[in-house]
Structures are given as C-alpha cells and as structure tokens.
C-alpha cells in the first residue's frame, strides 16, 4: 500500500515539476544562446564592452589576443572562467577521500581483498597495460584544452589502471602515502598558481602566462598547467579510494 502511495506521490511531483517547467525551458530547437553566458564564453568576449555581440573573427589557429584560447570551450569554462568551482570540486573529492580514510582506515590491518586466482592473461597483460593506460590518462589531461577530455577524465583513467592492477594481481598494493603527497602537492600548486595570479595580475587564478595560439599544445596560458595538476590530483585521489575500499579487515 505504501508503495502505491509512493508511486502516486512521485507521479504527482512529476506532473507538477514537468508541467511547471516545460513551457519556460525553451529546450531543443528554441534553445538559443543569444543571451546566455555560454555564448560569451564561446566567443571569449567576457571582458568586452558588449559581450553578447556576434563576432566574426577566426579563432582557431590564429587567435592570440583573446582572453583565453583553449580550443575546448568546456575546458576553458571549467579551468578558467569558473576555476573557483573546480578548486572547490577537487577539494570536495580530497575531503571525501579523507573522510573515507578516517572511517575505514583504522579498522583494517594493511590487508587487502584477495580475489580467487586472477586470470593468467589478465595477470600478465596488466603489467604491460599499466604504463599504457597511465600514459593514455596523462595524454588525456595534458591535452584537455584542445581535445575532449581533461583532468578529471584523465585522472579517472589513471585510477582505473590502479583498479585493474588490484583485480589482476593479488600481491599488488598501492603505495598510498606517495599518492597523498602527490595529492597535496598538486593541490598546493593549484593554489600557488592562483595566488601568483593575484600577485602578478591582481586577481585570483588570473592568467599571467603567454596565451599562445589556439589549437597548439602550448596555448591557453594557465589552463593546461592547472588541468595537469587537477589530473594528477584526481588520479591520486581516486587511486586512494580504490586503495581504501580494497582494504580488508
């Protein structure tokens, strides 16, 4: 009976939510960018006088006078325009991992969950795959500003390699202290670059490097550096998560 009422309630909420929102959400074809922040971010016209104007200059491969020229606009939003969010985000992850360690860390005695006879092929190939996967992860986050991907994605891939190692080899164990140092180090560097922005340019996390040309690896000023740091941090953090949950009493 309770379930029936739950279904009714949920459906009612769905009705009210949906029909309240839909007429105003202008989705699909009507969804236009003309007055949205997203358009300004795409045009890189934030600091212009009239930021919503339609621009016609060519950016890719030429631009070097716009305010940030990461070819990947999503990256430019994450790491530059809304970089404070990203700082908070990596800290959330960092803190959550700390909490997990605090909860689980004491109860186990340096053991880990063992699996029954890992497959031989997996076992053997994992050692070959590990550097490749890590390399791929690094590639993802180093190229975050010009191709799809970035620090979080790359970090996850690196952490996935750790997970793979845990599945493939029963005697594998992550050296989590090193990971912690890496985590802290990259977090600190993130902040130091941010503070350098204040010292040099006057605003927190403001770019003070050369912007380069859009589409080149060395472009976008601080963006690739910070994304690399984020990537390192995320890979360290997620590896630590794997380590903690693989621990056993």
């Amino acid at each position, binding site marked *: 009976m309770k379930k029936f009422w739950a279904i009714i309630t949920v459906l009612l909420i769905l009705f009210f939510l949906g029909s309240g929102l839909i007429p105003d959400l202008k989705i699909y074809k009507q969804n236009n960018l003309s007055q949205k922040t997203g358009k300004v971010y795409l045009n890189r016209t934030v600091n212009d006088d009239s930021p919503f104007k339609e621009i016609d200059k060519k950016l890719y491969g030429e631009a070097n006078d716009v305010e940030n020229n990461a070819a990947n*606009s999503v990256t430019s939003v994450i790491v530059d325009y809304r970089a404070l969010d990203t700082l908070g985000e990596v800290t959330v992850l960092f803190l959550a991992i700390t909490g997990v360690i605090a909860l689980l860390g004491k109860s186990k005695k340096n053991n880990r969950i063992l699996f029954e006879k890992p497959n031989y092929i997996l076992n053997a190939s994992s050692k070959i795959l590990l550097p490749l996967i890590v390399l791929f992860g690094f590639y993802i986050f180093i190229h975050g500003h010009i191709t799809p991907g970035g620090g*979080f994605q790359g970090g996850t891939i690196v952490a996935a390699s750790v997970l793979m190692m845990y599945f493939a080899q029963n005697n594998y164990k992550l050296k989590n202290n090193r990971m912690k140092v890496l985590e802290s180090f990259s977090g600190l560097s993130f902040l130091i670059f941010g503070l350098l922005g204040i010292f040099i340019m006057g605003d927190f996390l403001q770019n003070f490097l050369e912007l380069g040309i859009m589409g080149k690896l060395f472009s976008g000023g601080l963006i690739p550096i910070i994304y690399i740091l984020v990537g390192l941090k995320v890979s360290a953090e997620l590896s630590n998560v794997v380590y903690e949950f693989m621990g056993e009493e």
Partner: protein
Amino acid sequence: MGEIINYWTFIYGPLAIFLVGVYGLLTQKNLFKLVISINIMDLGVNLYIIALGYMDNASAPIYTAKLAVTSSRFVDPVPQALVLTSIVISVAVTAFVLALVIKNYEKYNTLDLIKIKGIEND
C-alpha cells in the same frame, strides 16, 4: 508529435529518473539501497543538466580547424562544465556514504533502517 516526444525525452525523462530515486528513498529500508537511490537521483539531475544544454544541429563546443567560426554552431558549454562538477561531487559523496554504510554495518550488524533505528533509540 515530434515536439511532444522531445519533451518526454528531454525533460520528463531525466525528471522521471530523478523521481525513481525519490521513490527509492520513499520505500526502501536498506541503507545500501538508499545510497543507490541517491545515485539514481544524481543520474537524473546530470541528465537534466545535459538535456537543457542541448541544441539542434550544433556540435561539441570545441574549436577545430575544420569548423567555421560562428559560435551559434556550438552547444552551450556551461551545462557541460557544470555537469562535470556535479558528477565529481556525487562521486565524492557516494564514496563517503558507502564508507559510512560499511561502518554502520560494522556497528549495528544490519543494514535495515528500522532495526538500526531501534538499536539507536535504546
């Protein structure tokens, strides 16, 4: 007809997923299932964010050599950036709450909500 289908897919779909999570929270008594419900809600919200950023005939907001310049060819990058943050936060919360579930199990030897509440109130 096409419009209606799009409403269903773009708004009602994610909201329905979100509300499946709510349904789980309303009815489930198992701590782990509650966590799963929260995760389903996360999924719904993330889909909703992405759906709202969608535009017809537009591509991923990445400048490449091949595409012409005008920004109206790209989808809105902001929801995509936000969804990344949202995902990361939900991962963090999930990790923490799962650890909490483990500790709850260690302490009370059960995952049943009612039983835990009973022990807690004694």
